């Protein structure tokens, strides 16, 4: 499937002039492969003729580990999947397990979950844009601005959960603890300030001629290929499919909020679209956050559920719209305290599958930014 839609690139071979390809192995310790990822690239001059992604360097046996420990014990390990977005990872796993044990999540916990998830989305998108521009060759200026904003949100996470990145905050039936006093006010302040930062960010990046000409028309992903390859998240919406699990599933209490889903008309689906969709999604996240912070009630934080439980034999799939795409957890319970099967549907890995199709025929610099625009975290790709 994937090779059929790849651009039909033929090496320019003129008569009497034999050229040989340059094979380079980009990674696993290359500055722009976002972790320990490797691309075996064959170059004709600077043009990518062949590209083979190699991964698995960060494989930690996540799924098999989880099958050998209780349901709760897997929760901290989900933080380590996509270590930028531990809150949403927690939520996806909690959502799956809650289907097994059928527990009511208190109202306040639902609101806090939405707040945490949208803050996570802000963290992810803002740093992704920073890294993406870094891949384009800027000296990290947007990345530094992004890190400053990320730092503020991580401070909030730390105050709420005790850890900045490995939050481990969600529990089956609610959250581990309530947020401390004054936390909501601090969050409101941050959310109120965030649009001003986004304005500045957009002014810095969105009209820059170099960024426009570097990203437009690069790494085109057609709507058909995107759907066939199972692409999800902002990448799918950039290819012109209006599909957002927050609208489709309306999991949690997302049906209570008014927000819009940005998507393209599907003509291009290039790196610029993927970049812009993320910029626009941040505005929507801010809108959701404002509503959630205005409406959040007082009350319990976790439903009645025992720490160690034996669910009835069942088969469940819990999925959420993670910042990178559809993050799903598939669990089979066999009546013991441990899951019989534990499977993660990682958006990073599945979005990465179209890398070769998008890179062939482009320049090596394009391959780097295409990889950047896919938004992968190797912790999730390799698990």
């Amino acid at each position, binding site marked *: 499937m994937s090779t059929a839609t790849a651009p039909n690139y033929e090496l320019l071979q003129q008569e009497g002039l034999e050229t040989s390809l*340059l*094979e*380079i192995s980009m990674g696993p310790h*290359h*500055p*722009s492969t976002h972790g320990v990822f490797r691309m075996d690239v064959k*170059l004709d001059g*600077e043009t990518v003729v062949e590209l083979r992604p190699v991964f698995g360097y960060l494989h930690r046996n996540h799924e098999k580990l989880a099958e050998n420990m209780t349901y709760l014990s897997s929760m901290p390990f989900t933080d380590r999947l996509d270590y930028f977005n531990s809150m949403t990872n927690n939520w996806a796993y909690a959502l799956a397990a809650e289907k097994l044990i059928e527990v009511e999540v208190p109202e306040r916990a639902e609101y806090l979950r939405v707040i945490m998830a949208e803050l996570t989305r802000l963290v992810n998108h803002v740093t992704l844009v920073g890294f993406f*521009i*870094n*891949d*384009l*060759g*800027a*000296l*990290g*200026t947007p990345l*530094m*601005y992004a890190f*400053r904003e990320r730092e503020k949100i991580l401070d909030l996470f730390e105050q709420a959960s005790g850890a900045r990145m490995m939050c481990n905050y969600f529990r089956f039936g609610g959250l581990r603890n309530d947020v401390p006093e004054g936390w909501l006010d601090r969050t409101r302040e941050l959310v109120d300030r965030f649009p001003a930062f986004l304005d500045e960010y957009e002014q*810095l990046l*969105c*009209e*820059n*001629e*170099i*960024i*426009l*000409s*570097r990203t*437009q*028309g690069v790494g085109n992903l057609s709507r058909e290929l995107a759907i066939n390859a199972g692409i999800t998240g902002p990448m799918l919406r950039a290819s012109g499919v*209006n599909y*957002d699990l927050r*609208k489709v599933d309306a999991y949690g209490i997302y049906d209570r909020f008014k927000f*819009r*889903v*940005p*998507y*393209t*008309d599907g003509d*291009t689906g290039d790196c*610029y*679209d993927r970049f*812009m*969709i993320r910029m*626009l999604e941040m505005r929507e996240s801010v809108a959701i956050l404002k509503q959630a912070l205005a409406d959040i009630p007082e009350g319990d934080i976790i439903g009645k559920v025992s720490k160690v439980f034996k669910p009835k034999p069942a088969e469940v799939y819990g999925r959420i719209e993670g910042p990178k795409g559809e993050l799903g957890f598939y669990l089979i319970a066999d009546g013991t305290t441990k899951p019989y099967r534990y499977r993660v549907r990682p958006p990073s890995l599945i979005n990465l599958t179209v890398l070769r199709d998008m890179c062939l025929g482009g*320049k*090596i*610099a*394009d391959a*780097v930014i295409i990889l950047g625009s896919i938004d992968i975290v190797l912790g999730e790709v390799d698990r």
Partner: protein
Amino acid sequence: MSFELIKDILIATVPLLVIFPSLFAFTTWMERKALARIQNRIGPNKTGIPCTRIGLFGLGQPAADGIKMIFKEDIVPRGADKLFHLLAPILALIPAMLILCFLPLEFPWGKFMSAPVQAFLLDSAVIFFFAISGLATLAIFMAGWASRNKYSLLGGMRAVAQMVSYEIPLVLSAVVVVMMVGSLNAKEIADAQTGFNWFVFTPWGLAAFVIFFIAALAETNRSPFDLPEAESEIIAGYFTEYSGFKFALFFLGEYIAMFAISGLAVTLFLGAGDGPFLTAAPWLSVMWFIGKIFGLIAVMIWLRGTLPRLRVDQLMAFAWKFLLPLSIFNILLAGLTHFALDARVAATSDAILYSIHASHTHSDAANHDHPKPVAGQKEAVMGALHYTDKDWMGAMKWFSKAALKGHAQSRSILGWGFGIWAMSLIVLYVMAKGLDNVSRSTAKPREYLYAE
């Protein structure tokens, strides 16, 4: 005689070898500090005087960096060409240092020299400058090839292609100034711009300056043209296998080349050592010169903090499809404006001079009928005199004084001057815009759909 010569050469060169490397150290600090502030960081602020807690805003950082570089292990990859691996950084530094000699810097210690050193007053200094600065390409190629590393080789190839391409617009934009001054001698070019007659104030000079600056960025591998060392694509390009002192030498060479090419830009377009208060303190000239160099370097740092990098095909397209036609067109425009100005303004100013001459002879011959002097005649004559001296900044000053007093010919001159000036700028802008549209695929911000 030969002793004198050697003394002169030493007086002339040793300060250059001392001043510019120390300025390099300062520039690395400045760059780190400025980039840090652009990125809302603080930058080096603790490294000051050793063994104390006096931070001096981190001014000790370059020294600390240098010490670190010297004591680092020098790694030569197995399979590398050891000789060339060693020679490349040295070869990168030599041309950069050499071209500093062609800058018309007037150091106060010049008066200790028995005769001006020949090399500084070369008739073809500008050609020499380009010829020798081109040698840096070889060093980079050497480094890329000798490292026996594919990333180094890619970086080296990129560097060669880029520097060869950008040398053309660089030279062509300098040609305009050479054409107008009628000399390749750096000193004469500098002298032609005294009294704020900087070429950057002319429309063709402005365009040439912008082209020159952009091409200079590419020549010195600065952002957004830092493809040869693009860390997100090819690790560090030709630097990849360099460490320790060899790396420091490359670094030094790169910065000295930056100084040199900024110095040439200052010489050609920004009036060299020209500036205010020079009559009171002639030694300020060298300060102005170095200050202007630092101004240009500040802009380079600013650009580096803002812009991402171009892709290799866009880089080539930009050089060949945008800068090259624009600089050729600029040469044409410079010639045309020169003729147009000569045709009108020079003729009018000649007429002013002639009329005053005629009135004088007339009043001398027949002593009865004093013609009433036209208002502003005196100022107009001053303007015309300045104009014939090619001091058009002064001429404009006097002509506008005359025009304020209602002098018709001065008004016509001013009108023509500013008209041509503005017209040329508009033509250049339209040309550049058109070339941009032709050379670049239409990339513009897009509209997005929203689903409720």
